[in-house]
């Protein structure tokens, strides 16, 4: 078993920064009741100007011009941890949030697929870097050891044979002993007794140590050395995605929603990759300042999970949307995930590649223009021209019979055209149909020459006056 422990020392700050359009601007998280708020964490730009955790808010604002702040929110830290667990789920089926501020997951079973370890490590770091989370990372034979080693190491990879010696050199105050016994300060007792490092405890007779400090210390030491199994609660993925982006100021234009939308779709994409799934349909909801929320259903023709593709298609959908008022929050909700089968572009050749390109084009056109704009050309077994062409009524024609000539273009609605016809060239052809649905027609169609020499398809009702233009022979 090999366990990776990821420690996020600045999770609260970086989670909040992800929601800001300019993460480089001075920003700090504040904590405490209103009159005595103090700085809890500050980003680099703020720290460069002297802002430090623990300072009073007023003092920090005096130091740093234009310091933006947000209240510290323990709930959102937990949310971020769960999201990171969902991300890690893409690498391992055993992901645990057992330790605060950290994430542990078992990786041995995935190394054959994703490894070797140095490559996987680089990938983990690259993906976390892209997400904007600073982290420390250790891989060790058991989760407890990985968790304590990440306190002092970064990038360390320990196997079974080295574990004992690496742990032995760990200082007692960094060995996670504080959590062993809440009532007694074990670390202080031990250091006062002259112990400095974990190795010195390992060297003591176990019975003596157990008598003096109790079973819980022994258990902790056993977990570190992998002698005691550690029962962890594993992260279980949720089968749907829902996330909200709230604005400080109401947003009036669709253009102002581009950034939050991009962020939410990136998170959706990440979530989908972690679940090895895709989406076919999701919902964007705008919480309006006044009035009921406005919802846009985004339906895709195939299953997607790539952030850029999702963004492009969602944008196309939103371009047709008119906001009913200023927006206070944006929610992305995917109620159902679909199985995702990635297509390997480079492997496809000829017709398959072309079919894929056509599917993508079709998707783009429909997303922007609406499903009804792109029409197929389908021949129906229906004699009334309007019904056959415009409403697509009747069963599909199966036999390709020759039939009398038809014009290439049908005019949307027949137009009265009494003086424009010079000569009748062919006809009549009687079309009489539709008595059963009340929309019956009885017409004599002719091929006629127009005044300017073009060939037109015209009709008149038998026994009545008046010619109507119905089509052009291109």
């Amino acid at each position, binding site marked *: 078993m090999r366990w990776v422990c990821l420690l996020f020392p600045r999770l609260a700050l970086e989670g909040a920064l992800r929601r800001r359009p300019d993460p480089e601007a001075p920003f700090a998280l504040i904590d405490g009741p209103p009159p005595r708020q103090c700085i809890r964490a500050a980003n680099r730009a703020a720290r460069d100007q002297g802002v430090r955790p623990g300072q009073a808010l007023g003092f920090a604002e005096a130091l740093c011009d234009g310091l933006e702040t947000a209240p510290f929110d323990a709930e959102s830290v937990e949310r971020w941890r769960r999201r990171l667990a969902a991300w890690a789920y893409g690498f391992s089926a055993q992901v645990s949030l057992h330790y605060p501020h950290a994430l542990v997951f078992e990786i041995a079973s995935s190394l054959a697929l994703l490894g070797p370890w140095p490559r996987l490590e680089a990938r983990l770091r690259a993906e976390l870097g892209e997400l904007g989370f600073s982290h420390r990372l250790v891989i060790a034979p058991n989760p407890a050891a990985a968790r304590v080693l990440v306190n002092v190491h970064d990038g360390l990879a320990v196997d079974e044979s080295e574990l004992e010696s690496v742990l032995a050199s760990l200082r007692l105050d960094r060995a996670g002993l504080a959590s062993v016994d809440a009532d007694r300060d074990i670390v202080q007792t031990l250091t006062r007794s002259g112990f400095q490092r974990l190795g010195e405890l390992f060297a003591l007779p176990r019975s003596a140590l157990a008598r003096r400090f109790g079973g819980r210390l022994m258990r902790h030491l056993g977990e570190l050395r992998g002698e005691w199994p550690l029962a962890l609660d594993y992260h279980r993925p949720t089968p749907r995605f829902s996330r909200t982006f709230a604005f400080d100021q109401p947003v009036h234009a669709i253009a102002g929603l581009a950034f939050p939308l991009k962020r939410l779709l990136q998170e959706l994409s990440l979530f989908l990759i972690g679940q090895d799934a895709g989406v076919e349909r999701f919902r964007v909801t705008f919480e309006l300042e006044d009035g009921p929320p406005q919802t846009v259903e985004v339906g895709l023709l195939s299953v997607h999970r790539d952030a850029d593709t999702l963004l492009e298609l969602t944008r196309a959908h939103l371009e047709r949307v008119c906001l009913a008022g200023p927006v206070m929050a944006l929610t992305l909700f995917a109620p159902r995930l679909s199985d995702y089968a990635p297509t390997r572009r480079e492997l496809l050749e000829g017709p398959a590649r072309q079919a894929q*390109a*056509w599917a993508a084009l079709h998707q783009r056109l429909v997303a922007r223009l609406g499903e009804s704009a792109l029409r197929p050309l389908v*021949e129906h077994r229906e004699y009334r021209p309007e019904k056959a*062409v415009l409403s697509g009524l009747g069963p599909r024609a199966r036999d390709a019979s020759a039939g009398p000539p*038809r*014009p*290439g273009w*049908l005019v*949307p609605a027949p137009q009265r055209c009494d003086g424009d016809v010079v000569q009748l060239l062919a006809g009549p052809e009687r079309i009489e149909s539709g008595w059963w649905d009340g929309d019956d027609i009885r017409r004599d169609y002719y091929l006629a020459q127009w005044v300017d020499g073009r060939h037109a398809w015209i009709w008149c009702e038998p026994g009545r006056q008046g010619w109507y233009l119905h089509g052009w022979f291109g």
Partner: protein
Amino acid sequence: MSSLETLLDSRQVWRAQTGAAGDRGEAIASGHAELDAFLPGGGWPPAAVSELLSSGAGNGELALLWPVLSRMTRQGRPIVLISPPGAPYPAAWRQAGVALGQCHWLEVQGREALWAAEQCLRAGCCGAVMAWLPQADSRLMRRLQVAAASGNTLAFVHRPLVKVAEASPAPLRLRLHRHAELEVLKCRGGLVSSRRIAFGGGT
């Protein structure tokens, strides 16, 4: 001689026939013998916009294009009609030999039609794209020409006769006359002649 070379190098002057010789064989046969014989390379310029000017629907544009469209669709390549002058009548298209399963038409107006035309041309998966764009000006035609070249797609843009006098970046410009005749207004790599070319069919 050297000054002529300089002019050729700086692309201020181009040779009428040599460029066409290189393209020979790549052109897509129009299916009309007299027209193919006239056009450089023996057919429609591939990966380019061919501009067709006429007074409106019914001037033989379908008789002119149906042979190439039917060939494209029978090869399994999709064709797209963008804001056509009327609804295409499936029976007539089928009678002309077009495989209907590969035909799509888009009913859009204005800027959306231009956007759709550019998307279809750039995607590079369409056998041919036909667009009716009375609103397109010379700048937009250039955009479409670039899109057709980058997507390597055969494009036909139909415009009204008022645009005859307007400069156009399309390498081939044809004016349709009645009785299934056309006049070549511009032809890159070929000769322009006022002789009318009959392309048969009509109705």
